[in-house]
């Protein structure tokens, strides 16, 4: 402590330029390392959970044994063979299948192999799942479903974000008005998740009025015309997207509005008003500017959140997205797919958090990189 202050006093002129660089570099290094370890531990925990402490291995072993025994018993070619040879044959097949799934190595070793592969983004091959075009690689399984999820989540979340920020800004100016009170009154409706609204929407628009499809992404004979295809997908998109939007719209507006209101009660905003600046300028320069870090953080987290998909909404609407794939992977005990989905999210999150520190500096001159916690 005393040494630091002494050094500071002595080299106060010279240190300024060099220390800024070392400080940033040091901060970046420490940040990157902690984030990397966070990812490692997070992914390894997921691997452990996906295996339930060896429990899933037992399930899979029993599953294989039953399947192979049935196949051997059912095969007519084996009928003349003695029971002893047949059992031997079954055992060989079981051993082979266990080797294919990696069950012959102990889980402790296998888990680290999963981890190192995942960290290098070598997603490997799925154990039981197959992509729609017949591929077994996790990469293809995930890539195949990515567009559907991006379409659904992208449309709904981006609309939700920009719409609620825009409305919230307008409302924060008209605070206490009818619409403002309306939003406050309606905000508890966000207590219900999107699948819940989804069921109501299906009931209304698909079952009673019969104007929109129950679910899926495209009609059964796929339209061959590209234009018709897009229209058809859009028609299927309306209900899931709007249930995702409605379920968080009012709370989102309410939160942003409260947030903006807190910032617009700052003294410098009153000062600007007193100066007689036009309200657009006040909004842009004095309200949006200081709130920009928060807006950017929220937006960045939203964008990476798209990756996870919406497991339940996709299930209710039979939307062929990543969320449903993850759910199916869990049902198939398919660790590589589960880990693949997790590692990509973890990396995206870590990179975003890392980059956000620098973005803050760019948009807010008051913030310094590594300038205290």
């Amino acid at each position, binding site marked *: 402590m005393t040494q630091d202050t002494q050094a500071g006093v002595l080299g106060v002129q010279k240190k300024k330029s060099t220390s800024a660089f070392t400080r940033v570099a040091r901060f970046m290094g420490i940040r990157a390392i902690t984030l990397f370890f966070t990812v490692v531990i997070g992914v390894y925990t997921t691997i452990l959970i996906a295996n339930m402490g060896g429990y899933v291995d037992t399930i899979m072993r029993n599953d294989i044994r039953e399947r192979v025994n049935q196949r051997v018993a059912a095969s007519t070619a084996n009928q003349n063979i003695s029971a002893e040879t047949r059992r031997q044959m079954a055992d060989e097949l079981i051993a082979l299948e266990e080797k294919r799934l990696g069950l012959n190595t102990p889980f402790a070793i296998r888990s680290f192999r999963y981890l190192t592969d995942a960290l290098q983004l070598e997603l490997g091959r799925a154990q039981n799942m197959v992509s729609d075009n017949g591929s077994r690689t996790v990469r293809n399984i995930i890539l195949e479903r990515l567009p559907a999820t991006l379409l659904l989540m992208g449309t709904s979340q981006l609309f939700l974000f920009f719409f609620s920020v825009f409305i919230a800004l307008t409302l924060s100016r008209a605070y206490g008005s009818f619409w403002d009170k309306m939003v406050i009154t309606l905000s508890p409706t966000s207590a219900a998740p999107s699948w819940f609204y989804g069921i109501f929407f299906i009931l209304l628009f698909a079952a009673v009025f019969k104007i929109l499809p129950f679910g899926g992404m495209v009609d059964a004979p796929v339209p061959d015309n590209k234009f018709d295809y897009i229209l058809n997908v859009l028609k299927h998109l309306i209900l899931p997207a709007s249930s995702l939007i409605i379920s968080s719209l009012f709370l989102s507006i309410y939160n942003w509005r409260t947030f903006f209101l*807190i910032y617009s009660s700052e003294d410098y905003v009153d000062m600007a008003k007193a100066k007689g600046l036009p309200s657009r300028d006040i909004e842009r320069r004095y309200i949006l500017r200081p709130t920009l870090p928060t807006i950017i953080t929220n937006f960045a987290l939203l964008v990476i959140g798209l990756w996870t998909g919406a497991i339940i909404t996709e299930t209710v609407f039979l939307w062929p997205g990543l969320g449903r794939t993850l759910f199916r992977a869990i049902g198939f005990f398919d660790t590589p797919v*589960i880990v693949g989905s997790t590692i990509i999210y*973890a990396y995206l*999150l870590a990179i975003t958090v890392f980059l956000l520190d620098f973005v803050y500096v760019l948009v807010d001159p008051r913030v310094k990189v590594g300038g205290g916690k």
Partner: protein
Amino acid sequence: MKNLKKNFAEISRYPSAVFGLFIIFLLVALAIFAVIKIPYSEAVRLWRGGEDVWYMNPKNVPPAWFNTFRKTKLPESFAIKGGEEGFTKTVTPSSPDTAAIDFEYAFDFNYDVYPQELMLYFTSTYQSKNPFVSIYLITPDGEEIRIGDLGISARQTFRFSQDEKLIKRLVREKRNDDPMLGLFSVPETDPPVPQKGSYKLVVNGQTFEADSDINVEFVFHGQSYGLAGTDHARRDLMVALLWGAPIALAFGLLAALATSILSMAIAAIGAWFGGWLDELIQRITEVNLVLPFLAVLIMVGTFYSTSIWTILGVTILLSIFTGAVKSYRAVFLQVKESTYIEAAKAYGASNFRIIFFYLIPRMIPLLIPTLVSAVPAYVFLEASLALLGLGDPVLPTWGKVINDAQSNGALYKGYYYWILEPAVLLMVTGLGFAMLGFALDRIFNPRLRGI
């Protein structure tokens, strides 16, 4: 005490808070009523008992009160045993060994829709000679239709619409070949029109041994049932709707209470001791952010156990180290520097005393709104997992009813009541807590009060 009174007076100024409190009060009352009316074991028996418990109920029918709002009235279901009021049983011995046992039951049918099914459950006692019964139905216009003649064993079921002989006889008499339409229509109408009025069921039994006896239960499967209707397995939905309340409340409240208190305590400990402990707590929070919350819950449900208590435990475990720890910690770091903590340190208060008696009580205003607002999320979480087929294997919950309805295509087939009943209850629960939570947030956080 004074403070509590003041807060309560404050709450009564917010109509939404009063409304929310009212809903919560009703739910608690409903939950207590459910637990007292249908004890746990009875609820499980009614929900999972099998065909023996449900045989009296029709399949997939809406609640009986639908008739109030319908033009075409749906027949109500009933079941009555021979010998009970209205269902007369007369025994007339004809010789030392034989006796005639006759049953008669008159019932009104003033509906516009045909019943789903009529059934007779016979039970009899005999040594070696089976008793014999003849069944007749007398329609309002006085016509007597022979339903069937059969020798009965100890337990015998007669289903009207599955009896081939009855169908043949109805066709011969130029009636509709669907027994329900054939028996309950005005003769020779096309399309068939239900015949309203008083019907009479007559069962003439004959026994051939001294101690032989016949008993019968008449089960009328209408097109509506009870207060909540039934599902695909003939279960009375009322059981699940009633029992859903205590389960939803218990799950939501326990999860919300445990997570908010634990994360607050952990944040306080971290902020107070600082150093490596604080650092560790921060890192755990970050690792937890990487874990896919719902996916982990689904994995636990799929691989390990779908018991609601296991799921509750895992939910709490995953929800302790979240952003809440960070925001509580930030406030604790400020509070830690205040003079009254300094004073406590000066008089030698222990760490434990400072954390639990000085730091945490300061945060209760922040804790209560968060706690109340968190309840709906957990109530819906339970329903969400049930919707994915990971509901508790034994207990009837609202989410499981929605799941059953979804997987049996309730929306396609038009059984809207099946989904709407649990959904409305879920929505009301969610709204009640959310509204109260919002109002409390404004009361306890003065920063928001003006806004």
